[in-house]
């Protein structure tokens, strides 16, 4: 890059996955878009060819919805190019908090009694019981250390991978995402200890031994590396 009059804000690399654009994150945005436009105009020809995916890295720049749309437009104007992803190193505090909430295990020490509803974002770890008539709802998984005798609804916003686990599993109703299952009408005395509920391949809620979860939902393990 010999041009001294203008520092290049954009660097382009071709990889197996397509084009990678590395954008400067300190310059003015308008200037940046202009350079992207120029660079791509120079690099692409007008003839028909295979589609090329573009990966855009914007570094430490936060893009608003509007800014992102403008960037997409600039790239889309060129033939054969489609935007595959726009990756930024930064997010707003609000987004970060929401993200944290969704991935957090919320622990609650409480007995959820008849008529009470406990609603959390993320996974729920309940240290206590859910009594008949009580309800626990979580957007993620539900783990009950005590007895689950009421209603549990995991994956509330539509996560079918969510599970429900309880030390004593005697629920009146289980719900995962949009699927529901109720307790059998007969009362069984044995079993029901250390069990989990999940959605199987036939879209049914199944209750089984807790130990099966490590095969069924390996991503429940959050420890890094092996131990």
């Amino acid at each position, binding site marked *: 890059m010999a041009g001294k009059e203008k520092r290049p804000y954009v660097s382009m690399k071709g990889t197996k996955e397509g084009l990678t654009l590395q954008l400067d994150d300190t310059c003015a945005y308008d200037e940046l878009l202009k350079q992207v436009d120029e660079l791509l105009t120079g690099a692409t020809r007008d003839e028909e060819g295979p589609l090329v995916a573009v990966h855009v890295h914007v570094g430490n720049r936060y893009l608003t919805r509007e800014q992102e749309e403008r960037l997409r437009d600039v790239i889309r104007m060129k033939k054969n190019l489609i935007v595959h992803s726009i990756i930024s190193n930064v997010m707003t505090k609000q987004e970060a908090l929401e993200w944290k909430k969704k991935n957090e295990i919320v622990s609650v020490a409480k*007995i959820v*009694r*008849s*008529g009470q509803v406990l609603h959390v974002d993320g996974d729920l770890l309940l240290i206590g019981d859910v009594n008949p008539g*009580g309800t626990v709802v979580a957007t993620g998984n539900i783990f009950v250390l005590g007895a689950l005798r009421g209603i549990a609804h995991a994956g509330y916003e539509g996560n079918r991978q969510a599970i429900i686990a309880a030390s004593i599993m005697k629920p009146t109703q289980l719900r995962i995402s949009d699927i529901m299952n109720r307790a059998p009408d007969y009362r069984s005395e044995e079993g029901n200890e250390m069990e989990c509920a999940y959605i199987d391949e036939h879209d049914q809620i199944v209750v089984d031994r807790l130990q099966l979860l490590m095969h069924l939902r390996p991503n429940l393990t959050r420890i890094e590396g092996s131990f």
Partner: protein
Amino acid sequence: MGEAIVVTSGKGGVGKTTTTANLGTALALLGKRVCLVDTDIGLRNLDVIMGLENRIIYDLVDVVEGRCTIQKALVKDKRFEDRLYLLPAAQTSDKSAVTPEQMKELIDNLRQDYDYILIDCPAGIEQGYKNAVAGADEAIVVTTPDISAVRDADRIIGLLEKEEHMKRPRLIINRIRSHMLKNHDMLDIDEIVMHLSIDLLGIIVDDEHVIKASNNGEPIVLDPNSKASLAYRNIARRLLGESVPLMSLDNEEQKGFFSKIKKLFSAR
């Protein structure tokens, strides 16, 4: 400063009023100054069970609305000289005649003159319940070994736990039939206590004499030979802080030689 205890249950007909009358009487027998407050406005019963119905002149609503002083409305139980009083509910108004704030003020006034104020709560979880709970610093939850009564007790305990001014509620299981317990036809006491997970204050066996005594306007506690009477006296002693073991439920049925031997070996 007296202690205000509300007797509640959620479900109707489990024995709140009977429990209030008998615990109050038992506490008076133990030498405490007790005031019973009936908050079941519109459906008052406590005065009938205490046998004080014909002495009522003013009631709780009269006091709250300023038509008379508390002292004038209180009905004295002559059986206990100066130790047992009743503040009757109004029969002509309904529960909305009183607000929780007014109840709190009323109970706080009574605190200065009595050791214990027992508040009889109406069934349900609406206005009447809110009034009854507003002034109390402790709650006794009454239930029977029926699944519906236990459910409602659970609901009430959940509501009571939200009241920050109150101590943890305690439980009385009423109307236990020992022969049904033995055959496992009834919810087990341990099962109920575990389910509700609050401290057990006492258990009371089902006793026909209770109904008879209530109809005569004489709380069963006054009859020293009844099992239910003993149970209420025990509960009163536990309220005073004594530790009294739970009553054994075995009746005199076990009279045979073998059962005696069995009992010897199974004794814990």
